[in-house]
């Protein structure tokens, strides 16, 4: 485990991402260092001069003269500190201080400590002068000489006994004074302690209020957090709904695209059917056009007779509509009598053939054309009998004809000689139908041009 830690630390130090950046900077610095080495030195600019004493360490380095009493006026650590500052001009180092304190603790006189410092190599370099120190230091050192030193101390002690007693009494007084001072200080400390206690109580009160406020804030924070969670929950639900709607829209879009595809496919099928139907219709038109009655004298004679009969029943320039005009030969016969005749034909080939000969034949469904005519707008209506191929169709046709004809208008049904003429187009059958549709007095054209029936619109 520990080896891994070591390796991790080494890796951490060596695989720093800033390595490239620092490497580039360092290469530039190396180049600059090489260039600077070769350059001539620049003129030196001095910083502002230093103030007299920068760090106030309480050492008066200028003073080198002291009295013994001045240095011995302190005790224990204060004495050592003062001695170092005065004699060595520095604060005491830990080792030196401990050594001198041990000396004092072992009963050495202060003069010996002072002398040790003063005449140490460092103290000699400083060279401070302490008046009266040398003889006392010498005596202290002599006192350490075995036997002689002991006797010397005895002698000195006896000689100085009165002085010692006086010092003892003075010490008693001093200690009593100090005891009083300490007692005063204790009282003062007690008073300050009471003050501090009072301040602490006030602080505790404020602290209690702050804690209460903090509790309230914490509760509000909890409430806000709960609301935030509820909002997050709602947002989640909305997001789910939004996702579901998005899915539904995607499905719907798919269905619409599918329906579009089906509609397009159906449209194509219908187009194909219409195309086929149109082709079929064109082929039918061509077939029917080929089967149409040729332009023979008999036909011309028949038309002349029929048109004469009709013209006789109508006023001059009467307005006539022909349904199932074919190639327009019949219209030409009508117009030869001065009638304003127009036709409608469903066969495109026959219509084109009629238009080629300037015959007014329009392309269209006969019944639809008739229904588009205004009520009581025609003087006469002529019908090709092939249009009435069944009873219901004929009834509808005749009903529409009655509506479009003027009150005394004339209806002519003509049975052309076509191979596909219906069996139900014989004149007797028509007469019955016309009577049923409200036409009066049907009459058939006379032979040899029989085949057309005229009937006048009966009164409403």
């Amino acid at each position: 485990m520990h080896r891994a830690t070591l390796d991790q630390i080494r890796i951490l130090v060596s695989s720093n991402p800033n390595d490239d950046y620092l490497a580039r900077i360092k290469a530039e610095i190396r180049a600059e260092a090489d260039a600077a080495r070769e350059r001539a030195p620049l003129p030196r600019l001095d910083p502002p001069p230093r103030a007299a004493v920068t760090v106030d360490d309480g050492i008066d380095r200028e003073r080198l003269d002291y009295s013994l009493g001045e240095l011995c006026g302190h005790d224990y650590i204060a004495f050592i500190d003062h001695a170092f500052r005065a004699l060595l001009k520095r604060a005491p180092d830990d080792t030196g201080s401990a050594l001198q304190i041990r000396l004092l603790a072992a009963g050495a006189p202060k003069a010996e400590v002072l002398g040790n410092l003063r005449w140490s190599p460092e103290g000699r370099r400083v060279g401070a002068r302490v008046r009266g120190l040398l003889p006392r230091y010498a005596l202290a050192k002599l006192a350490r000489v075995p036997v002689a030193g002991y006797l010397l101390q005895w002698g000195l002690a006896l000689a100085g006994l009165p002085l010692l007693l006086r010092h003892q009494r003075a010490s008693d007084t001093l200690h009593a004074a100090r005891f009083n001072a300490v007692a005063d200080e204790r009282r003062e400390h007690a008073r300050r302690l009471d003050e501090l206690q009072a301040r602490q109580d006030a602080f505790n009160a404020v602290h209690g209020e702050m804690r209460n406020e903090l509790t309230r804030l914490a509760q509000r924070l909890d409430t806000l957090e709960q609301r935030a969670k509820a909002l997050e929950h709602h947002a989640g639900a909305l997001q789910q709904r939004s996702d579901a709607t998005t899915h539904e829209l995607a499905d719907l879009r798919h269905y619409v695209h599918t329906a579009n595809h089906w509609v397009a496919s159906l449209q194509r099928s219908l187009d194909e059917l219409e195309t086929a139907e149109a082709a079929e219709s064109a082929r039918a038109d061509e077939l029917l056009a080929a089967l149409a009655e040729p332009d023979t004298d008999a036909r011309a004679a028949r038309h002349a007779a029929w048109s004469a009969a009709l013209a006789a029943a109508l006023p001059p320039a009467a307005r006539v509509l022909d349904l199932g005009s074919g190639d327009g030969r019949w219209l030409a016969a009508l117009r030869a009598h001065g009638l304003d005749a127009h036709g409608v034909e469903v066969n495109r080939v026959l219509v084109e053939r009629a238009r080629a000969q300037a015959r007014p034949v329009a392309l269209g469904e006969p019944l639809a054309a008739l229904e588009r005519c205004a009520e009581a707008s025609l003087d006469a209506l002529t019908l090709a009998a092939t249009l009435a191929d069944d009873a219901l169709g004929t009834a509808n046709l005749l009903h529409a004809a009655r509506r479009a004809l003027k009150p005394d208008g004339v209806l002519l049904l003509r049975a052309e000689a076509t191979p596909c003429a219906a069996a139900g187009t014989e004149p007797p059958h028509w007469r019955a139908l016309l009577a049923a549709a409200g036409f009066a007095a049907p009459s058939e054209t006379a032979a040899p041009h029989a085949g057309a029936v005229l009937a006048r619109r009966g009164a409403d």
Partner: protein
Amino acid sequence: MKAAILLPSLAGRDAVGNDALAMARLLRARGIETRLYCEHASGVDERTWPAAELPDFAGGPRDLVIYHFSVGWPIALDVLRRVRGYRVVRYHNITPPEFFAGTSRVYEAACARGRAEIPDVARLGCELYLGASAYNTAELVAAGVPAERGAVLAPFHRVEHLLDAEADLRLLDELGDGARNLLMVGRIAPNKGHVELVDAFAAYVDGYGDPARLLIVGKTDPGLASYTEAIRARIAQHRLGERVWWLDSVDEAQLKAAFLASHAFVTLSRHEGFCVPLVEAMALGTPIVAHGSSAIPETVGDGGLVWDTTDPWLYAASLARLHADAPLRNDLRDAARRRYERTFAPAVMRERFFDLLEPAL
């Protein structure tokens, strides 16, 4: 369970003392009765006990003993042999004696004794060997410690106190006069590379002509007076007299002011087991230019410019580039701050400390 912190001397303002006191505080905060054992203590409001009494307090099989190994001290080996619990050797490194050759026989001999003790400490078979850097742990492993018992934990420091402290306004004003302030923090000892630093400073002054000053913060040691004199001689040789400020015995406020007012923290130290001032510079946003010796590269990481030589012109050009290139300055500050937060912040270190001690707790 009881815990004992063992070290030769306890001082309140050195790296080893800070580390030991911080460990004691953390263990007590976890409810473990903890005592500090040393020969003598100064500058701390902490009760200490004589080292010889340690086995009586924390010699049991469930107890924890952490020995801060930074000098030769045979008593510690004897104590560690007498306890039966979980033993941790906290290795702060010992300066190789050759750095003191010709300067101080006392220090040379002390360092030699200390380094001679490394194999003995390795042979103790302690449960955990905790280097202040991978460089330190690698030394122990080379001396015979099984690699799986080695780990790394940066020393606990007082950088957060420094961040909270008020800077000395008078010193700040004095240094904020427009001159470029270059800072070196560390005791005045031969392995710290002060002479090379003065050479680099001279190259900067001559090569770039900026009004600049060098702040040398650190305790002078009477026992290393000849080294101090060598520095002064080199300063005089380069005619840098008034440009070099010696700040001996600064307090926290003055130290903070020095960091804040400095344009770069420069060190050409030739041997460091970790180098706490680098961490202080990272936390306080002072760009770092350093000689990548011993543990310095791993302490700095990507939070500064680190060179593998002591070529003074290289350092001069680095300082000029830092002065001219604001983006680089900001990038280095950001990277240093990140490194501090991720690696050296108290909470990170506290968690790692207890992770490493998990088998004993």
